[in-house]
């Protein structure tokens, strides 16, 4: 693990920033629609969604890849952030809803006499932003405290996180839970006084998401460089040693769990205004599993891996669900299986893997060609000089 930003990495961050914050929005805004370089509003919106997923994937990796905590419920925090911000957007609709009431549509429909008390402060933008950070942070703090204090580890921790998100999902499905039941929150009209559906607003949301991605990357990278990051990886590799070195491992795990919940929540908060809806299916267990797949595909234990994984898998999904609607899940499953079996370091580890494979093959060929044995394995048996170690193995197979 590097202890400072490498030059190439800084260049990468810079280029990524220019691309996401400058070039892509410009291609959408200033290039005429007739040009091949034009990026449609639909496409920029889609990319914004991918970037939200990339941030979510990074939060999964901060837990799984760096701390060894496989959370199968990370989408709970993503959805909580989405709900917190969605509540604010809901209240901005005002009388423009279907029922022309001050109350959100679903409340009229379900016969609420007035706005529930806990909805009232969400009229304030900054309260909603605070809730995006605090609510998932608090849920993670309480859950993490109980789980880590009881030394729940490994697969038990994974199952508990899955149960947590499933439980929350069921709760949010209920109409009397005041968050819109299975329809969730939707039909948003404004954000910060602007029309939420206009191309310009969506472009700004895309840029905001890009900024979040870059800040998250830099933050995670910085965190892994500190002594905290070293302890984090030590917990992953040998939690007992960490305990017997005087660190309260539970506190370190709790900190990472809360931080990654907040990161996921921020991604969710930016996701909702871009897709225009948040409902309980976002916290269904399979969503969190999908996020884990992105990380595994991209390469866990790296920060670029989750970004690559989230974008590649979702781009593939967008394409495959149109091209082969029935086969999408099979494609995803096959990809996951192949990568887990043959590419332990994921897509970002592939170049290195190929290079080392190539090098080994090359060295082997050279060794054999130096002895003039290319062509026939059988010649090994006849050779009077002792065969090289690699060749002994082939010789023994017969």
């Amino acid at each position, binding site marked *: 693990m590097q202890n400072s930003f490498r030059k190439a990495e800084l260049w990468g961050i810079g280029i990524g920033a220019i691309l996401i914050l400058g070039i892509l929005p410009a291609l959408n805004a200033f290039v005429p629609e007739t040009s091949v370089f034009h990026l449609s509003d639909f496409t920029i919106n889609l990319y914004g969604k991918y970037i939200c997923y990339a941030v979510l994937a990074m939060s999964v990796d901060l837990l799984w890849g760096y701390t060894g905590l496989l959370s199968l419920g990370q989408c709970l925090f993503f959805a909580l952030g989405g709900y917190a911000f969605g509540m604010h957007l809901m209240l901005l609709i005002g009388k423009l809803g279907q029922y022309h009431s001050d109350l959100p549509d679903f409340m009229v429909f379900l016969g609420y006499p007035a706005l529930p008390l806990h909805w009232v402060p969400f009229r304030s933008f900054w309260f909603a932003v605070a809730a995006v950070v605090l609510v998932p942070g608090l849920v993670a703090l309480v859950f993490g405290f109980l789980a880590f204090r009881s030394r729940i580890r490994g697969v038990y921790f994974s199952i508990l996180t899955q149960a947590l998100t499933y439980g929350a999902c069921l709760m949010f499905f209920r109409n009397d839970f005041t968050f819109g039941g299975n329809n969730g929150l939707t039909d948003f009209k404004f954000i910060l006084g602007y029309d939420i559906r206009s191309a310009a607003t969506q472009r700004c949301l895309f840029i905001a998401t890009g900024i979040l991605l870059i800040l998250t990357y830099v933050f995670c990278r910085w965190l892994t460089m500190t002594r*905290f990051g*070293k*302890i984090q990886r030590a917990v992953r590799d040998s939690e007992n*040693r960490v305990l*017997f*070195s*005087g660190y309260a491992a539970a*506190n370190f795990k709790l900190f990472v769990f809360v931080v990654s919940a907040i990161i996921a929540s921020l991604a969710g908060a930016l996701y909702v205004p871009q897709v225009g809806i948040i409902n309980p299916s976002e916290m269904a267990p399979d969503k969190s599993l999908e996020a884990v797949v992105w990380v595994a595909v991209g390469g866990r234990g790296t920060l670029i891996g989750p970004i690559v994984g989230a974008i590649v898998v979702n781009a593939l999904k967008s394409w495959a669900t149109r091209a082969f609607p029935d086969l999408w899940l099979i494609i995803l499953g096959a990809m996951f299986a192949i990568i887990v079996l043959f590419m332990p370091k994921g897509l970002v580890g592939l170049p290195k893997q190929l290079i080392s494979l190539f090098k080994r093959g090359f060295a082997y060929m050279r060794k054999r060609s130096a002895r003039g044995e290319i062509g026939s394995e059988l010649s090994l048996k006849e050779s009077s000089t002792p065969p090289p170690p690699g060749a002994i193995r082939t010789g023994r197979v017969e």
Partner: protein
Amino acid sequence: MNKPFILTAEGVTKSFDGFKAINDLNFYLDEGELRTIIGPNGAGKSTFLDLITGRTRPDEGQIEFKDTPVTKKSEYQIYRMGIGRKFQTPSVYSDHTVYENILLGLKGSRGVWSAIFGKVTPAQNERIFQVLETINLKDKAQVRAGALAHGQKQWLEIGMLIAQDPELMLVDEPAAGMTDEETARTGELLLSLAGKHTIIVSEHEMVFGRQLASKVTVLHQGSVLCEGSLDEIQNDERVIEVYLGRKKKHEAIHAEH
């Protein structure tokens, strides 16, 4: 007036599924002492160290470190009281560099915030290299610990212990898997630490021989069989029975079944 003991264990019993790994054990250790605990496999050496360091808790009895009971405390709290431990199988962070391993073992704050915002001071850096020099791994500072040879991993873990600078060091079978030469050097290392620290070395057999010249406690079936100098131990009838007669007894037990 007697000097107070640094570590006392009285009437300690610990059983796993009915098997008494530690059975009414009494053990007293003076401050600054170097003590060797030996015993055959299953005598309870590692379990005893587990009990001192909070890895398991006794069913009965009391263990006190400097007159404070440790039996209710968790691993990291016991560590902070000043007890450090090296495990039987080398337990280092194999993905971290040798330097980072020592850094994580280094005495100092163990909090989350200081870990995030704290910087490695020049003094700490110097101390790390000093430790690396002591354990002969200075030129391997930037090597992944997982790439070290077995004996070097053992030393690295001893190095983490030295970096911690605890009052009481528990060293579990440090010479396991080492060559004779490495064993001799490990013995020297332990001797150089004695005096500055109180040390318990557990051993399967007397690998260090006379090198450590310490008082020896022989454990057998979870309790203290006898204590004394190496000469006294070697001439003790019961010890001879346990070590030499074990095979015979073993056969006898099998014959009964």
